[in-house]
């Protein structure tokens, strides 16, 4: 069937919407993040951790919010990346950027291999398989004491200055700039992917995998692709953590790591990318606050936060804000029409 292209060209509005140009809010977000370096000099170590958590949550959002794949074991790749960077630095190669690349490659490779196990069956099976694999990886790291230092963690990590110039300092200045820079670079990549044909396909798969295959899309293969990419990004986040703290322990594989990233994504609003970063920041602030109030039992309140989120705040903070915003702009009238 041939569609006649001679009809009037589509309005430029179509092109603008599909191109997803940068909005001023987005630019403001990054300017603000950069300005934090000057505005919050005492918070920098914490903000660096938030940027790392944000990158990890971003990788989970790519998987969950964009492609609709749920994982309870994404920390496996975070941990693998962390240990790759740690082992490299420990064995005498402390150059940070190449460490990140190596971590991303190894974690991505592991993600690629395990994707064939993960991406079958229902949501429930996926949850269990991802959980099982992450526990398996953690247990392996725990047993391979000669390589990983076991439960003591990896000692003696010496990371060189970035570009051979900027050394990591005690005030977290370098760490923050470095972490934010890497987060921004990865964000650009993810944003690009999400608004590409491949990204649109992923959103389609999330919406309706059955129809996607009727449209000629090999759903499994696309998911292998995004799972690999998400694993690589998680690995980079893990490597960042190792490099900025000069330490890595088995905690990086933990179940709470995986589930907190899920919470961060949902808290901020799944599928919005920014939501993942904001959610990770909020969760970190919340944990720091709780840890100050009840140092031993802060997990209780985090648990409560999980439950409240699940029950009352679907769509997340950002989702809520966006809904409110569009509602206000459209004028409060216009009730949404829904199909039977």
């Amino acid at each position: 069937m041939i569609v006649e292209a001679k009809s009037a060209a589509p309005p430029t509005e179509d092109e603008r919407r599909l191109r997803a140009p940068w909005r001023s809010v987005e630019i403001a977000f990054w300017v603000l993040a950069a300005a934090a370096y000057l505005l919050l000099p005492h918070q920098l170590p914490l903000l660096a951790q938030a940027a790392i958590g944000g990158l990890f949550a971003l990788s989970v959002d790519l998987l969950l919010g964009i492609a609709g794949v749920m994982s309870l074991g994404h920390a496996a790749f975070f941990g693998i990346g962390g240990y790759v960077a740690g082992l490299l630095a420990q064995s005498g190669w402390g150059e940070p950027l190449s460490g990140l690349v190596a971590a991303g490659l190894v974690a991505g490779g592991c993600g690629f291999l395990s994707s064939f196990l993960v991406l079958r069956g229902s949501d429930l099976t996926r949850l269990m398989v991802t959980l099982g694999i992450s526990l398996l990886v953690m247990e392996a790291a725990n047993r391979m004491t000669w390589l990983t230092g076991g439960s003591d963690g990896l000692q003696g990590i010496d990371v060189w200055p970035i570009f051979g110039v900027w050394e990591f300092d005690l005030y977290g200045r370098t760490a923050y700039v470095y972490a934010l820079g890497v987060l921004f670079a990865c964000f650009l990549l993810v944003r690009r992917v999400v608004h590409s044909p491949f990204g649109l396909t992923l959103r389609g798969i999330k919406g309706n995998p059955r129809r996607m295959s009727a449209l000629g899309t090999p759903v499994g293969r696309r998911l292998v692709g995004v799972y690999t990419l998400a694993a690589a990004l998680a690995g980079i986040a893990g490597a960042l953590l190792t490099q900025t703290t000069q330490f890595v322990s088995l905690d990086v594989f933990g179940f709470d790591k995986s589930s907190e990233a899920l919470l961060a994504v949902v808290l901020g609003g799944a599928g919005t990318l920014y939501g993942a970063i904001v959610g990770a920041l909020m969760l970190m602030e919340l944990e720091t606050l709780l840890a100050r109030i009840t140092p031993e039992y802060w997990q209780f309140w985090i648990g409560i936060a999980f439950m409240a989120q699940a029950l009352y705040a679907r769509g997340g903070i950002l989702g809520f804000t966006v809904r409110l915003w569009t509602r206000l702009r459209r004028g409060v009238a216009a009730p949404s029409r829904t199909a039977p």
Partner: protein
Amino acid sequence: MTPALEMRRLTKSFGGLVVTNNVSLSLAPGERHALIGPNGAGKTTLVNLLTGVLAPSSGEILLHGEHITEKRPYLRARLGLARTFQVNQLFPLLTPLEAVVMAILQRRGIATRWWSGLTRDRAVLDEAWALLERLGLGDCRHEPTRELPYGRQRLLEIALALALQPRVLLLDEPAAGVSETEGRDLFTTLAALPPEVTVLLIDHDMDLVFRFAERITVLVGGAVLVQGPPQQIAADPRVREVYLGAESHG
């Protein structure tokens, strides 16, 4: 001439229950064929067999002379076999424009590009826009699909199949649940399908079927009861008995 779509002794059984029984059917290129039958006759099962959602217990399926019996659903779609669904299978959060662009990108084999934007190929946009305009979806192309009225969603269901520029199109009850006015729009759309596309229409709506089809196959209990041009089917006493009588359409 090689048939566009051919089923040879197609059989599907679940346990002891035979839902498709030895169905042989052949559609010439460009043919407008309708498949009717009472509820439970196995019409949707047949579509699922043709598109590869289900695997037949025995028998063969050929698309333009090529065996596709073993092929996965997405490969059949790539070979030019498109379908619509009886129950909408759409993308609730995507806009019609995005969904159609997605289908077109897939057909053109550039859906795996991850480094370029969606607007790099102007031709894709032009095609999507023209298709949406043609189906009367132009004015709502930026609204999320789940907010569209049902009749529009039905049309989008067809638009997605057409975006694949299929050689064979399976329409599974396209008029299911649409109002009378919407039904007229729908028929206009179907009547305007390019003549070279082979269409297998499955529907309850006798008006639609008898106006649209050049040949009709009646399916009862999973088996072909009779096959022929509309006049012959309308006059056939067996058809009147099992179908028209039961459905009180006639």
